């Protein structure tokens, strides 16, 4: 296989192939539409025969995320994937992972809810993802790809960030990008770390003592309030650093913009088309595309908010990210939301109408 090759693949397949190529040690997952191709692709690729990556179909999403916890606690690069209802089941595990300060990658291919909802795409897990879906004060480092190429690229990035901050990282996508086929340049192969490298890079990991004088304990439990507060403060300090260093975003046609659209993931693709239509009619609109949903590009939106007359937040939900946009700009200008629910992807024309109504 060539180091870099161009393929026409689905977003979900890109996640799987990128995982194999970025030195992932283990994937633990459970089938759910619209992301089952991740597990299916891994099973077909048989990476255990090539890179040695473990692939295991678990008995539930509960088991998947706790297998991830088990693997992450030993310093291995491990991941899981699911879609909204399954991700809900994983929330407890993610809280434990964050509490025990363990790195891992979780891919959520969002579908419409609430409840069993629909298998069609949605962005309605924004709150759950960036506001802490599980219990306790924790955050998920969240990357939102808006192309199949970014699906492939963000797997390794998510692992890098997860290990840098010893915290779970989420790739938050949806059924549009998961199921869509696009041309992708797959990343080159990065070897899995050796056991020696893992023990050196993750001196905290429960690998077996291997001559270490003290045992390593992976736990989120601490019954002494004073110590537990310190544990929390340590985690919060880490989050602060992450907020300062890891904000990622993209600006599109913002230089001369009178109006701004804020949209992430597949909604950002719709927004780009809306902007082209608007500019055809002489309306100068730009796009701020948050790539990290947490940490959120608050400062960038605040700065753009000072230049434009109003902001339209385009999301495939009932209005979730709009709260963070409003927090960024305060009451300084009008901020409106446009979205469709239940798995419906809005047309660029609809979004343009919403924008015009605002103007």
């Amino acid at each position, binding site marked *: 296989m060539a180091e870099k090759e161009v393929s026409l693949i689905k977003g979900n397949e890109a996640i799987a192939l990128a995982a194999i190529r970025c030195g992932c040690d283990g994937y633990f997952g459970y089938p759910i539409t619209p992301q089952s191709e991740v597990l299916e692709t891994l099973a077909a690729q048989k990476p255990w025969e090539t890179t040695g990556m473990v692939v295991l179909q678990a008995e539930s999403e509960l088991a998947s995320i*706790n297998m991830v916890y088990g693997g992450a606690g*030993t310093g291995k690069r491990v991941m899981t994937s699911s879609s909204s209802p399954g991700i809900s089941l994983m929330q407890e595990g993610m809280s*434990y992972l964050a509490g025990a300060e363990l790195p891992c990658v979780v891919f959520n291919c969002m579908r419409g809810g609430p409840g069993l909802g629909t298998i069609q795409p949605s962005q309605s897990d924004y709150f759950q993802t960036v506001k802490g879906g599980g219990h306790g004060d924790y955050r998920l480092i969240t990357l939102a790809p808006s192309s199949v190429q970014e699906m492939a690229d963000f797997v390794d990035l998510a692992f890098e960030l997860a290990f840098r901050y010893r915290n779970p990282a989420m790739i938050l996508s949806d059924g549009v990008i998961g199921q869509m086929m696009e041309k992708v340049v797959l990343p080159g192969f990065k070897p899995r770390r050796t056991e020696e490298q893992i023990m050196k890079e993750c001196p905290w990991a429960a690998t077996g003592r291997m001559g270490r004088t003290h045992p390593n304990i992976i*736990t989120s439990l601490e019954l002494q309030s004073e110590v537990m507060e310190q544990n929390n403060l340590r985690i919060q300090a880490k989050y602060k650093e992450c907020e300062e260093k890891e904000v990622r975003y993209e600006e599109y046609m913002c230089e001369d913009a009178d109006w701004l659209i804020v949209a992430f993931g597949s909604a950002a693709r719709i927004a780009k088309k809306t902007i082209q239509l608007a500019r055809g009619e002489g309306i100068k609109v730009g796009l701020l595309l948050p790539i990290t949903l947490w940490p959120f590009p608050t400062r960038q939106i605040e700065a753009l908010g000072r230049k434009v007359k109003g902001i339209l937040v385009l999301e495939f939900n009932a209005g979730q990210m709009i709260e963070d946009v409003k927090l960024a700009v305060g009451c300084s200008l009008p901020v409106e939301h446009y979205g469709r629910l239940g798995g419906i992807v809005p047309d660029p024309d609809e979004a343009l109408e919403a924008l015009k109504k605002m103007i």
Partner: protein
Amino acid sequence: MTREEIINTGELVYKKPELLNETPMHYCPGCPHGTVHKLVAEVIDDMGMRDKTIAVSPVGCSVFAYRYIDVDWEEAAHGRAPALASAIKRLWPDRLVFTYQGDGDLACIGTAETIHALNRKENITIIFINNAIYGMTGGQMAPTTLLGQKTVTCPYGREVALHGYPLKIADIAAILPGTCYVTRQTVHTVPAIRKAKAAIRKAFEYSLQGKGSNLVEIVSTCNSGWKMSPEKSFKWMEENMVPFYPLGDLKDTGKE
């Protein structure tokens, strides 16, 4: 012969295993958890696996098992220990991987993880302490609580119409093709403790040899939860628990 003479020039017959550290255990007086901890520590050291063991502790009284036995540990969410252990063993195939769980953790909230890990033929050992009660949370009814047995959530005794039947997890485990060794032991007498130790050793050996999953159930007591002295609770266990949870090997395919 003086005491000093015996100590200074005699033979050391028994000493707490070194792997069981000096931290005083939080268990109630007479709790069998301590005895099983000692056995696990002894077996790990007897096998020379101190450096290559990764253990998983549960939620329940033994949540703090990691404070006492000086191997690497991961503390799992309630019931999920076998899921952690499955992943750990697959990612580190040469390690000795075991979980240590109580009946609420293993036989109730974690039944799915337990049965599937066992039946996936994960090369792990599950040490299962069955004392028929939720100890840590204050003595509530467990899936293994006997019919007629009183707990704070079945204060008039467990009855079928209200609570259904006690669950024999080891019996289920024994019929799963993924299990290699399933045994039920106690630690209430010296001979029983010796047998339990041999069972733990066998289970650990089998899991290292890749022969499949192993379940060592220790029929146990909860003096505080049962509101009995340690002595009386062992007697109650013998008279009530053991007839319902009969002792001995339920399955051993490792010899073949």
